[in-house]
Structure formats: structure tokens, C-alpha cells
């Protein structure tokens, strides 16, 4: 945005930057409180003097989190499930998005709306039919029973987002490819796919987070195979109506959030440039 920068007067920019920083602090404060509570000793988490620091930071809460048997295993499972969903849904969504943007056909809008319909039902209501479906697939208790439902739930959003990216690739390019004798498949995978790839990365972030943070399916479909549990189950241990362990909750959440945050920081530039592709038409 270099051109417009020169147009904004200095005092205005300073004001804008100050308010941006202030907003950043406000937005980050709950996060800071979460991490802080994870480090506070047990009695201080809900102590009578809510100070934004702690004089005796303690790793006890984290210890309780990592004490969970197979914590590493849960972590790996979460990564496997999330990545499978991300990769498979990206590929399927790419094809579907191509179909609905580069072709006109009957029922096109119907298909698009159909993609959204599933998200409109409360998940709890769908858990029971899903459960029997997974049972009939023989997928219960395996990681597949987590991958499949999440795939289904992240596809619609991915298709809708990707539409913009696919649309943004000029038709002339497609024309040109066919003139040069490229087959449809070659155009799809060797020309269109790389062009849309940044968009795929951006879209994948959404499916990643929703899969990573879910526990409804994890607690419903992984019934008797503890080695297939995912990370949120380590968080649930600390929620107990009568005797909740807030320090443990905060520590487990911190542990869950940090990998996502690192991932974000790593890709955020690409995320922005990728998402931008959706309007370049």
C-alpha cells in the first residue's frame, strides 16, 4: 500500500497506529490471562487479588497436563487427523470449486446451497446418525471416524472460499492452454492448481483450526481405543463440575493453542497474500 501511505497525513497515521496497538492489547489480554493463569500456582488462579502477574510462577499445571498418559500420542493423532482433513478437503474442494465456477450447469446454485446445509444443523443432532454411519462403516474408534465427519464439515466452507480464487484465474489462460494442446487434466493440475495454491493454503487454515479444536466427535466416536484420542481430550480431563482444575484447563489450552499460533505466524504472510487472490477478478 505504498502509494496510499503518502496520502495519509502523519498525525492521522500516528493516531491510527496507537489505536491499533491499543486494540491489539485488548484483544490479546484474554490470551495473556489464559497463559498467566496456566503459570499461576493453584490457589491464585481464582484468588481474591486479580493481578496481571504472578510472583511465584509454577509449572505444576503444565506438569498435570503432560502427566496425562500418552500425551505425545494424542498430539500426533491430532496432527494426523487435522492434516488429513486439510489435504483431502483441499483437493476435493479444488475440484468442486472448479466445477461451480468454470462451468454453468443446471442445479449449480442448488449444489452450492446443499454444501452449506449440513452446517445449519446443530452438531449434537447429527452426532447420532453420524455415529451409526461410522459404526456401519466400521470406522468407530479409529482416526478415520474423526477425519470423515470433519472432512464433511470443512468442505462447504472450503468450496465457497475457493470459488473466488478459481474465478480469479483469467479465462484467457484456459483458452491459451487448450490452444497449446493441453488436455483438460493437464490444465487442471499443472496450470490451475499452482495458481490457486495460495488460496488453498489460506482456506486450509479454517479446516485446520476447526478440526484441531473439536472434541464433540472425539469424545463420541473414539469409544474404547484410548490410543486414538486427540488433544482436546487432554483438556476435558480438567473440566469437572464439582472440582474443576482451572490451572490445568488453562495450561492444556495453552499447549493446544501454541502450535496453531506458531503455524499462523509462519504462514500469516502467505495467508494474507493467498486470501487476497479471492478478489482479483
Amino acid at each position: 500500500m505504498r502509494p496510499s501511505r503518502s496520502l495519509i497525513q502523519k498525525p492521522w497515521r500516528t493516531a491510527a497506529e496507537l489505536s491499533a496497538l491499543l486494540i491489539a492489547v485488548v484483544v490479546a489480554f484474554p490470551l495473556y490471562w489464559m497463559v498467566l493463569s496456566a503459570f499461576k500456582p493453584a490457589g491464585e488462579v481464582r484468588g481474591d487479588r486479580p493481578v496481571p502477574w504472578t510472583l511465584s510462577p509454577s509449572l505444576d499445571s503444565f506438569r498435570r497436563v503432560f502427566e496425562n498418559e500418552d500425551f505425545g500420542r494424542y498430539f500426533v493423532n491430532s496432527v494426523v487427523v487435522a492434516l488429513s482433513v486439510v489435504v483431502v478437503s483441499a483437493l476435493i474442494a479444488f475440484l468442486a470449486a472448479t466445477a461451480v465456477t468454470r462451468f454453468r450447469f443446471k442445479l449449480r446454485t442448488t449444489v452450492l446451497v446443499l454444501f452449506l446445509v449440513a452446517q445449519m444443523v446443530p452438531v449434537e443432532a447429527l452426532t447420532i446418525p453420524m455415529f451409526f454411519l461410522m459404526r456401519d462403516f466400521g470406522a468407530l474408534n479409529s482416526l478415520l471416524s474423526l477425519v470423515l465427519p470433519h472432512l464433511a464439515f470443512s468442505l462447504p466452507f472450503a468450496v465457497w472460499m475457493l470459488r473466488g480464487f478459481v474465478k480469479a484465474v483469467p479465462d484467457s489462460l484456459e483458452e491459451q492452454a487448450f490452444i497449446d494442446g493441453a488436455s483438460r487434466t493437464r490444465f487442471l493440475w499443472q496450470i490451475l492448481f499452482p495458481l490457486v495454491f495460495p488460496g488453498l493454503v489460506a482456506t486450509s487454515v479454517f479446516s485446520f483450526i476447526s478440526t484441531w479444536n473439536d472434541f464433540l466427535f472425539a469424545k463420541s466416536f473414539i469409544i474404547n481405543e484410548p490410543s486414538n484420542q486427540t488433544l482436546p481430550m487432554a483438556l476435558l480431563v480438567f473440566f469437572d463440575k464439582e472440582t474443576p482444575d482451572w490451572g490445568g484447563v488453562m495450561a492444556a489450552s495453552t499447549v493446544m493453542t501454541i502450535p496453531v499460533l506458531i503455524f499462523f505466524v509462519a504462514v500469516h504472510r502467505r495467508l494474507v497474500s493467498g486470501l487476497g487472490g479471492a478478489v482479483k477478478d
Partner: protein
Amino acid sequence: MRIAASVAALGMAGLAAAGCAPSTSDGGAKEDEKSGKLRVWLFREVGNKPKEKVVDDVVARYEKKHKDVTVDVQYIPVDSRAEKIKGALNDPESAPDVIEYGNTDTAGYVKDGGLADISEEFADWGATSQTDKTAKESVTVDGKQYGAPLFVGVRALYYRTDVFKELDLKPPETLGEIASTAKKIREKKPELYGIAVGGAYTYGAMPFVWAHGGELAEPKGEEFAAAVDSPEARKGIKAYTDLFGDDNCPAGKCAKMGGNETVEAFAGGKAGMAIGGDFNRQAMEDGAVKGKYGVVPLPGVKKGDIAPAFAGGNNIGVLKSSDHRTLAVDFLKEIAGKRTQEELFSAMGFLPTFSDTREKVAKKEPFVEPFVETLDAGTKFVPVSPAWGEIDASLILPGMFQEIVSGKKDVEGASGDAAEKMDEVFRK
């Protein structure tokens, strides 16, 4: 509206096919194998290690007696137990043989066809002659036993020894004194609640109802009928809701609180008294009140009385779908037996359900004395009906207390409406 039309068509197709039934499962055991793998689900407590150690010993003892059996124990988070157990009921393939479950869930699981009737084994098991009456009630549905109690949890009155000393107060001996003592504390120390109470703290409020001679519901024919609108129950409800107000626990803050929040308020040094369980000890020890609190049984209406407390706790049951029924019951006897209960008390502080075992451990640990005293004075249980699950889940009772506390309805109106809603559920 082409889209709408095709969606409607989809809906019609669904209706047309309504003749065929939705998916279900076919539970029920076929065999009673005498060897193989016995699968056990226990709750994963916060700080589970000591429990695991006790259970490991139980498993070792058991496997020694049953050479051809291996026991596979899984610990499930308390917060996901409902989904897990539903899953196990829906898919017998995944189901364990033995489960730990919260005692208020008994009737529901029985109705769902989940728990096996073990009345005969229960009667033949010598140890059960010492089983606490209410604890036995909590595994009993229609006169049949569906498990064995593992431990009980019970609530009593926590108070601040330092505050009481400073203000020259004595621990209250009647419910009326609780109110007057609470107001005195609030008056002298306005930064404290006299007694922390919560509008959503049903189990803290019930003793007030019971102490005044009221009941939640009374058996009527096959089912129950609500009794929260009886004159006695209303007296109790009034006594509890009168504790809300600026002179003790302002409605603005306390109406929303549940059991855990009131305990937190006390543990955080914000209250002179609170109704808490034996299982809340750790929270107190971690909190600001460490070393500054005492516990007495929650008093009744008259001096010398103890208000009947709610007997919570967990049970061990055998699933109906288990194909190792005999082995499973044997394991149940081992893990819910006296020796294990004693060990669990030392490891986790779980109160035993056998009266003699409880007496024995109470001597070793003075902290539990007021709780044991409360148990011995007689406790109460929620209506053993599958409807209770729904009444509990739809927050009918917390709603009633909150309506009164926030001034939306008076005691008569709110309890009448609540009784009506409860009856509606019981009738289903």
C-alpha cells in the same frame, strides 16, 4: 426458487420413507465367557495417579485369582463420560464390561438398557450387609440392584475460623442461626458474603428443603409426583432463598452461582461460610483460606439436628452387553470391596460406602468426621427415576431458585410452576 423446490423434494422423500425405522443397535449379551480380556472404564480424576496405583493393585490381585483373564482399564475424562457411555450403549462391540458411573445416572442407564441386574450377586456378597442405606438406594431401581457403590460424597458447612474468632461467633447450630450468623458477618465485614449460596446450587439448597420436612418428589404409583410445592418444601425453599440479598449474598452475584462457584468464593477468602463437599478439600487447601477453616455438619431446624444431605458419589456397574458377566461381577466385588475402598480413601479421600470401613477411616482422618457424622445422621437421594436426568438437565430447580432470588416470582408461584414442569417430565 428452484433451490427451495429441490430441497422440499428432498424433504418429501424423507417423509415417504418414514415407514422404515431409524438406525438402532441390538444390545444384550449372548455368552458368559470365563477367560479373555475384561474391559473396565473408570473416571479420570484430576490428579489421577494415586487412583491408578490403587487400581493397579486391584487388577494384580484379581489377575492372580483369575489366571486366564487380563484386565484392561481405561480412564475416561469425567466431562466426556455421557458421550462415551452412550457410545458404548449404541455399539456393544466397543462397550466395556465394567464401568464406573455417577450415582444420579443409575435410573437413566437402566432405562437405556445399559446396566445388568446383579441383585442376586449383591445379596450373596457378604460385605453388602454393611452398605450404607442411601448408597444402596443409589444402585437400586424398582427393588433391583444394578451395581455396587464405590464411594459417597457429601456436603457440610465450611466456616472461617479466623473470622468467627475475630467476631466472637460460634458455628451455627440451626438453619436459623446460619441466617443470623451470616448477616452478622456481612454487617461487620461487608467485603465478605456471610454464607456463599448459589441460585444454581441445587445440592446445597436441597438440605434446606429436606430439613423442613419437604421432598423433591414422592413416589406415586409406578412413577413420581413432584412435591416441591408442598408447604414444608416451600418453607425450606424460602429459608434458602432468604439468604440472597444485600445483607448476605447479593442476588446480582449469587443468583447465578453453582456449587463450584460458592466453594471458590469461600476458598478465595470471599465468604464467612459455605456449603461444600468432602471432595472440595483440595480447593480449600490451595486457596486463601488454607489453615483458616473448620467444618461442621449442616445443622437442621432444631438444635442438635443435622440437615439431611444429598449423598452423591460413584458406583461400579456391569454392562448388560458384557459377555464376561461372571468375571465382571467378580471384578466389581474386588474394586468396590472394603479393602479397595479403604485404599481409595487414603489415596484420593473418597469416603467409603461401607459403614464399618467408614468408621475405621474416620478415626485416622479428623477432617472427614463432620462428613461421616452427616452421613450417619441419614442422607437423601434424588428420585430414582429416568425422568430425573431430564429434570436435572433442563435446570428446572435452579430455574425455580433463580426466579425467586431475582424477584421474578414469589416462592408459591415459582415452586408451583416448577412442580408442574417436573410432573410433565415424570408423566412422559
